[in-house]
């Protein structure tokens, strides 16, 4: 086009001269030649422009930007009756970056007065259903959320959700990041400010602005240095696409052609929207912050729609030089330029003088780090990445702008981290490592993962990758194998506790010992489990056969070793914390095994569902055996090896679990659960040194500390059909009666009650094992 324009007047001049004969012929030839040349150059230019077109389109259509996937926690559900404390709600609100204000009536803010919260949620789209923004009054009483109602009308609200917190993004080591916004999501005042400062004639020019260049030149000459650029937004956008500092003439020419092409092919609004998302606004480590959407989050910790005038002006101010006007590093300079932007806005009538003055009085309103969620939960993100690898290519994850909706529950994760911190601090300099996995009992959703003592560090993920001997954590499989044979075993069946020596895998004699080193003659089955006695467990394993035990182990979700040795029943095999969480999920859900999940759904950048990972379950163990096993595991907590939990959480009647300790105190484990939440904790040294702690003294306190910070539902299970509670004599395993000496009430399958009944002795007898039985019988 420009070539055409420059030739026109000349041609006009030539044709205007009237000369006869030869001259005319020559003139004709020259004219022809020039026309040809003109046509050729127009053609070449067109070809050149055409050659740039695909590149241009690539930026504008389809995968315009490589946008890393954004990863979200689960949204917190609020309803009357939910087990939740004010402190936990506050953790979730902080995770979301909600501001604490006096009224809690602005979107994304909250206020608290004792046990009463006012808060205004943002609303969101989620594959589990859409949520509208709401203003809520939330009251807590008796350890739960007791009232949920509309803040304005006081009408009860059945169910509301806080939006899911962003917990990270899946990006390559050095990559641009952005949070795409649509034009209609950008405040009009921000756009107006941007145009006033950067490109006044945006709506009138066709890509290049000569008046803009002239004005910039005048301003630069006056100032004696470059204070204004003459580039239009369109040119700036093109320049950004190439991200090159190369400022040769040819470069500038190409940019100019592309700017013209852009304007030719696309609407002003499309160009503006692209600019708003493209503009470079700062750097965080290896991630380049692009676009106003991410800029708002990065600097102010809130969505673009919620920015104040002053904050909008600051973002516009930074466009000219994100480093020079970086408000964190150069607050004075950034503030001056922000105020200049506000002045220009007022001069142009975008805002009035009063608004400008009050905006100038505002401080910069920065958050310390609006991207603090980046890399915050590396161990959990690791799990998410592994999950997604099954169905998604890495390129798509780091470039398609996907939304990953995970199962992480920030309140549970944060309680786990605080517990690890607090407990490991007790060790001083020689603290062991720790790992923890928390899971929803009913559906297998992983709600928290701690991969090591330094849980912010994305290093070795012990929760997933450290395989360590599990000790007594295996025992529920042994006792389950027994309870699955109700004609042979019930909870009250007596097992031998006499010393035993058998051959180990090398053919050497092996003499397992109880933890306290002593032996009784016989112990009831439930007690052998709750006190984690090794000798009766080995006897039981021998009489059941290792293959039966292994089958139960596999049914619970445990990995079975290729070769089985007698020491298998004492937990010689090595497993990760995550594997143990799967096994105990099955135990806790009464035999319904749900594969552990860390992702609920993936949507594309427009929120369209791509995949859903829904709840699945399999009845791996029958309800009756599961129920009986669970009864014994509750005894572990109420009077067995985990009775110390009471010191952490008070009432332990709704909890169950199992401790584990390995040889020479190298590994300590605790797996415990309530009705809704399960955590498995491991501690040990990476180099396998002994730390001198048992499951009870080392791992249990972390569990206790975590649960003491959480609200949870106690375990309440319906007694399955065909099961009844009967009185069993603890020493003989025979039937007894209420009030009889040594009688313990145990759930039994009605069709498999012991045949014999003991004589009822009403008074406690005297014998040498008195102390032991006193504790067993809770006297």
């Amino acid at each position, binding site marked *: 086009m420009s070539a055409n324009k420059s030739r026109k007047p000349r041609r006009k001049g030539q044709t205007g001269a009237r000369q006869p004969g030869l001259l005319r012929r020559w003139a004709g030839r020259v004219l022809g030649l020039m026309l040809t040349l003109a046509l050729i150059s127009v053609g070449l230019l067109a070809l050149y422009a055409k050659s740039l077109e695909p590149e241009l389109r690539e930026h504008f259509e389809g995968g315009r930007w490589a946008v890393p996937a954004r990863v979200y926690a689960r949204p917190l*559900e609020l*309803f*009357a*009756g*939910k087990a939740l404390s004010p402190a936990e709600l506050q953790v979730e609100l902080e995770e979301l970056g909600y501001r604490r204000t006096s009224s809690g009536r602005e979107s994304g803010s909250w206020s608290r007065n004792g046990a009463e919260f006012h808060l205004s949620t943002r609303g969101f789209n989620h*594959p*589990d*259903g859409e949520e509208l923004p709401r203003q809520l009054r939330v009251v807590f009483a008796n350890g739960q959320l007791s009232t949920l109602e509309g803040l304005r009308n006081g009408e*009860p609200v*059945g*169910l509301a959700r806080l939006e899911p917190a962003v917990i990270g993004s899946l990006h390559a080591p050095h990559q641009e990041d952005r949070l795409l916004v649509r034009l209609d999501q950008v405040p009009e005042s921000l756009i107006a400010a941007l145009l006033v400062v950067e490109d006044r004639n945006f709506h009138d020019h066709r890509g290049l602005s000569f008046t803009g260049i002239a004005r910039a030149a005048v301003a630069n000459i006056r100032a004696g240095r470059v204070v204004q650029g003459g580039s239009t937004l369109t040119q700036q956008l093109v320049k950004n696409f190439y991200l090159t500092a190369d400022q040769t003439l040819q470069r500038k020419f190409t940019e100019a052609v592309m700017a013209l092409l852009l304007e030719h092919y696309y609407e002003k609004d499309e160009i503006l929207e692209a600019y708003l998302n493209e503009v470079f606004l700062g750097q965080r480590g290896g991630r380049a912050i692009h676009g106003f959407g991410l800029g708002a989050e990065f600097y102010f910790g809130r969505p673009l729609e919620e920015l104040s005038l002053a904050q909008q002006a600051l973002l516009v101010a930074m466009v000219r030089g994100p480093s020079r006007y970086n408000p964190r590093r150069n607050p004075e300079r950034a503030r001056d330029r922000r105020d200049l932007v506000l002045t220009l806005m007022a001069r142009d009538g975008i805002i009035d003088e009063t608004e400008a003055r009050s905006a100038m009085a505002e401080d910069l309103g920065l958050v310390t780090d609006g991207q603090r969620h980046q890399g915050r939960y590396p161990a959990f993100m690791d799990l998410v990445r592994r999950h997604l690898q099954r169905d998604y290519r890495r390129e798509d994850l780091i470039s398609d702008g996907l939304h990953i909706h995970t199962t992480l529950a920030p309140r549970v994760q944060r309680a786990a981290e605080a517990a690890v911190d607090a407990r490991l601090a007790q060790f001083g300099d020689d603290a062991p490592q720790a790992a923890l996995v928390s899971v*929803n*009992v*009913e*559906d297998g959703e992983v709600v928290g993962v701690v991969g090591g003592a330094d849980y912010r560090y994305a290093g070795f993920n012990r929760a997933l990758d450290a395989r360590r001997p599990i000790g007594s954590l295996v025992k529920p499989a042994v006792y389950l194998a027994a309870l699955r044979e109700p004609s042979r075993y019930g909870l009250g069946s007596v097992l031998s506790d006499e010393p035993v020596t058998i051959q180990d895998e090398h053919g050497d004699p092996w003499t397992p010992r109880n933890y306290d080193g002593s032996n009784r003659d016989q112990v009831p089955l439930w007690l052998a489990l709750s006190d984690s006695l090794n000798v009766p467990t080995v006897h039981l394993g021998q009489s059941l056969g290792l293959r039966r035990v292994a089958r139960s182990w596999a049914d619970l979700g445990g990995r079975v070793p290729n070769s089985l040795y007698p020491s298998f029943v004492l937990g010689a095999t090595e497993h990760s914390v995550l594997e143990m969480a799967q096994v105990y999920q099955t135990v806790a859900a*009464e035999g*319904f095994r749900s594969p552990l999940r860390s992702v609920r759904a993936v949507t594309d950048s427009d929120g369209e*569902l791509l995949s*859903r990972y*829904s*709840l*699945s*379950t*399999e*009845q791996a163990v029958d*309800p009756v055996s599961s129920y009986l096993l669970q009864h014994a595991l509750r005894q572990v907590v109420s009077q067995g090896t985990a009775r110390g939990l009471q010191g952490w959480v008070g009432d332990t009647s709704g909890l169950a679990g199992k401790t584990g300790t390995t040889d020479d105190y190298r590994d300590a484990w605790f797996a415990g659960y309530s*009705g*809704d939440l399960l955590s498995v904790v491991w501690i040990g040294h990476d180099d396998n040194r002994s730390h001198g702690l048992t499951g009870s003294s080392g791992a249990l306190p972390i569990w206790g500390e975590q649960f003491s910070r959480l609200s949870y539902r106690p375990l*309440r299970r*319906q*007694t*399955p*059909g065909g099961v009844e509670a009967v009185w069993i004599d603890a020493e003989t395993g025979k039937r007894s009666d209420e009030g009889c000496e040594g009688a313990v009430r145990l759930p039994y399958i009605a069709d498999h009650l012991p045949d014999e009944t003991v004589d009822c002795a009403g008074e406690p007898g005297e014998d040498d094992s008195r102390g032991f039985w006193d504790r067993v019988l809770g006297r």
Partner: protein
Amino acid sequence: MGLNARLLVLLLPLALGACTLMPPEHRPTEPAPEPEPAEAPEPDAPEPEVDEPEVDEPPEEAAEPEPEREPAIPDAVIELVADAREASQNGDYDQAAAYLERAVRISPDLAPLWQNLAVVRFQQGDYGQAEQMARRSIRLADGDRALQRRNWQLIEASRAEQGDEEGAHEARRQAEGI
């Protein structure tokens, strides 16, 4: 199972309807594109017990076995179930399942929720999970014979869909034995 829970069952006969209760050979090969209305009368289908509102008179069987606890149904669950029903009626079973999963997270001990999830899985064509969800419902439905029977009927239909005739017969025996 208390009054509340009964109402919940009544609230959502999630269009189990025709397909499931018909013998396999009479079933359409493709799942019906449109969801049946919630209470589609089906000539050869057994009378659906759930639709009898046993609210006024207690069930025949003497003394409900151990009313250990009365699961109060939170309004949140009622809302989600209503959403699930609507989604199901629009043929959006994925969405219906998502609502029900949320409901289950809130009240995991509520047998009818698992039953509904079982129905939705069936509608999605996931017969394996339909059976598993029904089993979970049965585990929790102690004392609610009607719900147990419904679950066994669903298991029967799921097994039949998978070509497991023997298993289907066994499930029918279970249903009839209740």
